């Protein structure tokens, strides 16, 4: 008797790329707005960035249905937290919540590659990067999604700082200003769009700083 293969998979990949860069007093989160399935484009104007808390944004690529479910769960948990503690969740707290939420589906994972960005309780920029089952790390910059293998080496080239594990400890400098970081993000997406079929259409950039949250858009190649 031949082994039967599953002819239906619960997962799909809607493509797209996300990036986040942390600075001394700001955080830039960006993602393209293309949603695809296979070789088809479903829409050119889908936002992959969502606000989880006052100073905390999440950008996710992968299977957008799982992303949507994850966002709803986190929003509900945040609301409960606000009712219980009478304050917004901080970015590090939200980061851990996301990690736990992802791990609870360890045996049936959310097909979602996330990048969390915002300001920590001291007002410094923070970026957390995740894998699909919840392992996370606070970093200075990160990218996820179909274009991440194209984007990450470039960010390493421009932004890499000495590892925090080195002994004697070396200073990690974040040299970029907010406008330089935004320019870098635009450059990076323009390049990724050239070589990744799933990245393109439009770029949504969100900047979180002490004054609040502001959004910016830039057109990308539509082919």
């Amino acid at each position, binding site marked *: 008797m031949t082994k039967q293969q599953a002819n239906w998979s*619960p997962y799909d990949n809607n493509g797209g790329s996300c990036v986040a860069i942390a600075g001394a007093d700001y955080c830039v989160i960006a993602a393209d707005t293309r949603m695809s399935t296979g070789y088809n484009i479903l829409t050119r104007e889908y936002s992959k960035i969502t606000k989880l808390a006052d100073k905390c944004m999440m950008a996710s690529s992968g299977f957008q249905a799982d992303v949507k479910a994850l966002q709803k769960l986190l929003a509900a948990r945040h609301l409960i937290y606000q009712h219980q503690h009478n304050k917004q969740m901080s970015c590090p707290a939200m980061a851990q919540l996301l990690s736990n939420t992802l791990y609870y589906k360890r045996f*049936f994972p959310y097909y979602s590659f996330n990048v969390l960005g915002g300001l920590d309780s001291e007002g410094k920029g923070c970026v957390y*990067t995740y*894998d699909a*089952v919840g392992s996370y790390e606070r970093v200075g910059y990160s990218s996820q999604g179909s274009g991440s293998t194209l984007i990450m080496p470039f960010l390493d080239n421009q932004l890499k700082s000495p*590892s925090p594990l080195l*002994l004697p400890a070396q200073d990690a400098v974040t040299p970029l200003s907010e406008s330089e970081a935004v320019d870098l993000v635009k450059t990076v997406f323009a390049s990724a769009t050239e070589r990744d079929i799933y990245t393109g259409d439009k770029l949504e950039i969100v900047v979180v700083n002490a004054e609040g949250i502001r959004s910016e858009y830039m057109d990308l190649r539509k082919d």
Partner: protein
Amino acid sequence: MMKLDFSGLESASSHFHGVDSELVEGLSRAPSFEIPNTTNFDGFQKEAIQMVKPAKGTTTLAFIFKEGVMVAADSRASMGGYISSQSVKKIIEINPYMLGTMAGGAADCQFWHRNLGIKALKKECEIEYINFLTYPMGEEFIGISHMFRCRLHELANRRRISVTGASKLLANILYSYRGMGLVGTVLPYYVDSEGGRLKGNRFSVGSGSPYAYGVLDSGYHYDMSVEEAAELARRAIYQATFRDGASGGVASVYHVGPNGWKKLSGDDVGELYYKYNPITPRMVEQEMAEAAEP
């Protein structure tokens, strides 16, 4: 079917006494792991893991010598063929006398390490004689329940549990996780979830362990000094990162002595290469002569 002990997870459920709404019910259930509704669980897991590629891969090692215990690890996490991070902390400082290391699934390690309130144990753990525990695949909560049981033994019998006893306890705990590929060491013992329990002075775990073993085994003496042992551990990790693609980043070395642990070094393995293979400056005349040869 084995019963996985998730009692450490109960937290949110206690907040919702007497509230009946449906929404809250969904959130108030004690957190449990959703299992996919499929006839072939293992096949599904295999496919899901291949698709999602959770971060893993590593080299960690530990050995006993005259001056105590030496622990070392690399810092790379890989997702399939992509390096997802070069700065993962694989040696966890549980308390001033205890270190934990992680190998295998990063999410598994982080989750269980966190959710069993290791901080609570920081006050409780004076189990200095078990000063090193390694939990690949991250089931560190086994380490916690193991530590509790060792403490219970101590309280019940009015003396500390022996290392032999501790390793036997761990082997029995791991047995309930049979088939899940867990490995642990309670030096000088190595235990795994298949029922293996081996005694030895030195162990290495992870994808780079064969390479680390080569260096470790050839250079090991019981009577090494702390500096020699540190150099051996560092060299073993370095050689493993040299040959194993899933290991790399920063080689961290810790020493656990009678007064607790101390981090001895953290070196970028790329730079260690030049330390072990220095570039010898060549004489200009020699180079000119070589260039002149047809």
